[in-house]
Each structure stands twice: as structure tokens, then as C-alpha cells.
């Protein structure tokens, strides 16, 4: 397959993606698209983005060979792309820096964001402080309970965190509320979407900002291992870390791309957040057409995952397209499997991974023993697990 030139000019990846929003937002999306298309070809913008990633985020993030873990598994070598070492503790900041620079360029003094686990909210609040924007973060009240430390972090950074009480009180509802804010304050506000979803041009521009992950890997793999990996594995909620690491590898036909969704209590139980793995029907939510967990009447259903960052009923439209085209494979890991992977990485490598990233790790640990020791599995360790102390402790029956 040749490197493809998607999305089309109206944001479609095959039948997915597009612009499904209320009329009030159309002008803002046009303005954003025009600003981005100019910026991405502007050497000054690109240079500033790269400088910020280097000096503020701390890139490039290393690829770490998890030798003890690989030895224990007895098969393929596990390589970790350490996005957990970024400033703010996850890959989310890459995209936030990019969008903040766009907001600055567009002269918007106020930024808003939605957040699930709080990682994107923290990253948005961080760049808002860095560039001097007013910042409002919408967060489901259920997630606020699960992620108290991140809520406090955002407040320290000067952001206002608004609890969302509607619907299932999680990420999707936070996104609804952020959209409502944007519609209302569209002239002075920049909406920093945290994942490769939403109306065009968001899936494209978030992907582009996140491809720094995969582009670094291309160079680092050659330098450190003399070749590219046999498979690239990443967790998929909306799917921004996955697309960031997959995208530069799409033209390499013989490299498997494996997205790992949240199977929650198991796909068969219906209590999960894995629209691709469960072959959910396509539908329209949050501005794009994609695989969507819904009931027979087209109402969005509540999802379940131990990881708030994967607890979302849809998935970025480009993943939907990559699944249908067969270029990427999608599987799922349960809460139990993710937790086991979490504990294993803590004990064998001295790295505490985010519960989101633990899903990718769980799948790598599942397939590594079936592969030869000469095989290389590149896993995107999208974030660190400090924020998940509470959840993990609770699962182990420990109260702080």
C-alpha cells in the first residue's frame, strides 16, 4: 500500500470522519482548518513546534528495551516508546502544544478541553499556563471522583474544572459540554480536542501533531536495533497515541499495527469500551461518523473500562478506516489483563504505566511468548501510572 493522502478535503476516511456539527460551529471549523493548513506549511510554525517539543516537553522520548520483562516472557523482545517520560506524563501534551500554538496564531485568548482520565485536561491546563490562555476543562463528575489528583493538578495550573452531570457523567458527556461551550463562545475560544476524533479537521490535525511519536521511532529503531519492529502495539480509546505511532509505519506493509481496546469486563458481557473489536455499527457522534457503541435505537450506550482514558463509546474515524482496510488489527484487553500487565511492568522494569497503556502492554505480553526471541514488539507506553494509584489500590482492597 502506498502512503495515502487521507482524509479528503471534507475530512473523510472512506465512509468515516466528516463534519457532523450544528451550523453555528461550521465557521469556526473552517477558520481552524484554514489556519492549520497554512501553519503546517509555515517553516516558522513547524520550527516553533519542534523547539517546544524539545525544550518544554523533553522530546525525543526514548525507546527502552524491557530486557527483564522480555526474558520473563521468553519470546519477542518488548521495546517501550516512553511517552510516559514527557512533561505532564503522557503523549497528550504533544497535541496540546500544537493546538496551543495554533490558538496563539489565531489570536484566541481562551481555550477549553474535555477530559476523561484527566491526562488531556492536565496537558491542556499546562499549555494554557505556558502560553497565558484562560482555560476551562470539562470533566464528567464520575471521572472527577476517579481522578481527584489530576483535578487538583489542573486547578494548580490555573484551569477551571467544570463537573459534567449529564448523561453517563464521563468522557463523552464532557465532550458534549465542551461543544456546547464552544458553540456559545465561538469567537474568542479555541477548543483543544484531545483525541483523533471530532469534526474535521480535528482527526487530521491531532494525528499530525502526534505523529512525532512514530517519526522518532523510525529513526531510533534504526539507530538502536538496526531495523524496524515486527509489530507496533498501542492502546486505543479515541486512539491518538496509537495513530501517532502507527501513522508513519502505514507504508511498511510487513510491520503489523495492533490497536488494543478496552474489553472491560469482557466483550461478551457487553460491559466494555471496544467498538472496533466488538464490530459495533457505524454511527454519528461528536462530529464524525465512526464505529459506535449504541443500542438498536441509535442511543449511545454506557461504556465500561477500568481506565477512564479508554472509557469512550466511539473511536477516531481513521482507526475505523484502518480496520476496514485491513492495514491495522484491533483486539481488546480486559480490566483484569490490563491490571496484571500494570503490576508486571512495575515489578520487572521499575516503570509504573498508565492503566490505558497497560492495555497495550497486556496484549504484547500475550503474543510475545508465541514469537521468536529475535522478534521486536514496539509498544507505545503512552502515559505514566501515577494518576492511577487510587484505582489500583482500591482494586487491591487498599484505602489511602
Amino acid at each position, binding site marked *: 500500500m502506498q502512503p495515502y493522502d487521507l482524509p479528503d478535503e*471534507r475530512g473523510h476516511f472512506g465512509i468515516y470522519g*466528516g*463534519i*457532523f*456539527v*450544528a*451550523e*453555528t*460551529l*461550521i*465557521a*469556526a471549523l473552517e477558520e481552524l482548518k484554514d489556519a492549520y493548513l497554512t501553519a503546517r506549511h509555515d517553516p516558522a510554525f513547524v520550527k516553533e513546534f519542534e523547539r517546544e517539543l524539545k525544550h518544554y516537553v523533553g522530546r525525543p522520548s526514548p525507546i527502552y528495551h524491557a530486557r527483564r520483562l522480555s526474558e520473563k516472557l521468553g519470546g519477542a523482545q518488548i521495546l517501550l516508546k516512553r511517552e510516559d517520560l514527557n512533561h505532564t506524563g503522557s503523549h497528550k501534551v504533544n497535541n496540546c502544544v500544537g493546538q496551543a500554538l495554533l490558538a496563539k496564531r489565531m489570536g484566541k485568548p481562551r481555550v477549553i478541553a474535555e477530559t476523561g482520565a484527566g491526562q488531556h485536561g492536565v496537558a491542556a491546563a499546562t499549555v494554557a499556563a505556558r502560553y497565558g490562555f484562560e482555560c476551562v476543562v470539562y470533566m464528567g463528575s464520575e471521572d472527577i471522583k476517579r481522578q481527584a489528583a489530576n483535578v487538583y493538578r489542573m486547578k494548580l495550573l490555573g484551569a477551571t474544572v467544570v463537573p459534567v452531570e*449529564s*448523561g453517563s457523567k464521563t468522557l*463523552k*458527556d464532557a465532550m*458534549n459540554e465542551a*461543544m*456546547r461551550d464552544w*458553540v*456559545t*463562545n*465561538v*469567537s474568542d475560544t479555541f477548543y483543544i480536542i484531545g483525541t483523533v476524533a471530532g469534526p474535521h479537521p480535528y482527526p487530521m490535525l491531532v494525528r499530525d501533531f502526534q505523529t512525532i511519536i512514530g517519526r522518532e521511532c523510525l529513526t531510533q529503531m534504526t539507530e538502536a536495533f538496526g531495523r524496524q519492529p515486527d509489530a507496533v502495539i498501542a492502546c486505543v480509546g479515541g486512539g491518538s497515541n496509537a495513530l501517532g505511532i502507527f501513522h508513519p509505519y502505514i507504508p511498511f506493509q510487513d510491520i503489523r499495527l495492533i490497536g488494543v481496546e478496552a474489553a472491560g469486563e469482557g466483550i461478551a458481557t457487553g460491559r466494555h469500551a471496544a467498538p472496533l473489536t466488538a464490530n459495533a*455499527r*457505524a*454511527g*454519528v*457522534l*461528536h*462530529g464524525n*461518523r465512526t464505529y*459506535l457503541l*449504541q443500542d*438498536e*435505537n*441509535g*442511543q*449511545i*450506550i454506557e461504556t465500561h473500562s477500568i481506565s477512564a482514558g479508554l472509557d469512550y463509546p466511539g473511536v477516531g474515524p481513521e482507526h475505523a478506516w484502518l480496520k476496514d482496510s485491513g492495514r491495522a488489527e484491533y483486539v481488546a484487553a480486559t480490566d483484569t489483563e490490563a491490571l496484571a500487565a500494570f503490576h508486571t511492568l512495575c515489578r520487572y522494569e521499575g516503570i509504573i504505566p498508565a492503566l490505558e497503556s497497560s492495555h497495550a502492554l497486556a496484549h504484547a505480553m500475550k503474543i510475545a511468548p508465541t514469537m521468536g526471541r529475535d522478534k521486536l514488539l514496539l509498544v507505545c507506553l503512552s502515559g505514566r501510572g501515577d494518576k492511577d494509584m487510587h484505582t489500583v489500590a482500591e482494586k487491591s482492597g487498599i484505602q489511602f
Partner: protein
Amino acid sequence: MSRIKSTFTRLQTEQRKALIPFITAGFPRPELTVPLMQALVAAGADILELGVPFSDPMADGPTIQRSSEAALAHGMSLQKTLAITSDFRKTDTVTPVVLMGYANPIEAMGQEAFARAAAEAGVDGVLTVDYALEEAAEFAAMLDHVGLDAIFLLAPTSKPERWTELQKLARGYVYYVSVKGVTGKRELDLAEIAARAQAIRAALQLPVGVGFGIRDAKTAAAIAEHADAIIVGSRFIEELENSPAGEELARISALAHELRRGLDSV
């Protein structure tokens, strides 16, 4: 001629403005929706907008969100909203009914299957908030094919070149959103609304209805001077929320009467 078109033609000869109330199907209880529709017509409504409840109503403020959640809790769905319309048609074959909602329930039923079922149920127009013009061409053609009007929103942020774009797909009337924002309570800039509504009316060959944030007869009358129709939603839902059980029809009728009087003073 479609019911919507004949309604506006009649109103024009009578030199009156259309009153378009919005209520959420299934709110406060499914069995009340048809009686509420009948009461609204009796109190002077010209066209009815029936909200199809959706789990993620992104363009709606808290009031309509609450009504949507309550209706869904009562088991309301797109199918059942169509059934309600069929019931309403047993006693009223004249008043146009417009379904207003979001794309996904239609996607789930299938656009073409929905268009056929809606026409069969006696629906006259369909306004799908998140089928932006960019994504609506095929769907609008399907609606047109079965004689339904595709109704679209225009916003204060819509550039004039979109008005002409809209002209290709829009039927029935154009819904001008009076404010940047979601449905519900707020301050309206009457002068700006008047200027926009007039400009759109002059540019398009369609009646223009204005909605979002209109709460009383005085405001309705002021805006109606520059428009063909006034759309009121959240205010009706609030009336239903605040009404003791058994008094819903009376409360709704009183509000519709008041708005009607306001419009007839124009």
C-alpha cells in the same frame, strides 16, 4: 403542495406569523405527547416541532437535555416518535409536524428506511441538527423523494455564501438560530437578529423562522416583525417541568395563547 408550504402560504394571505412550538416526544410522559400536540394546535400553533430524544444532545441547553433524558427513561425512541406522529394524524391532517433531532437514531434506522417510515407516519419536515450541509446532500434528496421537507439551521456565524449553498437542499422553512449558543434562556440582541433575519429572508426563497432563547410574547412579537415564524422550545419544556401532574395541557395552552396574542399584534 406540502403541508408546510400551504401553511405559510395561508399565513401570508392572512398576514399572520407562524407560531412553532417545540416539545420533546415522550416528555413528561409518552401518553401525554399527542394530547399536548392537540392542545398546542387548539391554542394557536401553526406548525409543531417534535424533538426526538437522543442520549447526547450536543446543541441543547440543560432544559431540553433534561427532557430528553426523561423521555429516554420512559423508553422513547425514534420509532415511537413516528408512532406518536401517526396517532396525531388520526385527529389532525392539517397541522405540519417537523421532527427535530440528531443524526444517530436516523443512522441506526437507516436514512432511506427512516425517510419512508416518516412519510408514512405523516411527518412533514425533518431537521437534523448535526447533519451539516456538508454531509446532508444524499439525505435531503431521500427526504425530497418521499415528499418531506429537509429543514436546515442558519446561525449568526453562517457566512452569506452558505445561504446560497443551503438554498439547494433546504425546503419548507429555514430555522435561523438567534444566538451563538445552545437552546435555552439568554439575552437576545433583537436589533442584530432583526437585521440577519431580514437579510436571509431577502436572499432566500423560503420562509424564515427564528428560534433559541425566545421566552415571552413581547420578544416573540418584536422578532416576528422581521421573520415568518417564531420557534419556542425550552420555555414550553420548562412549563411542563413546573406543572403539577394533570395541569400540563392547561399550562401549555396558556403559554401558547400568550405567544399567539403576541404574534397577532404584529
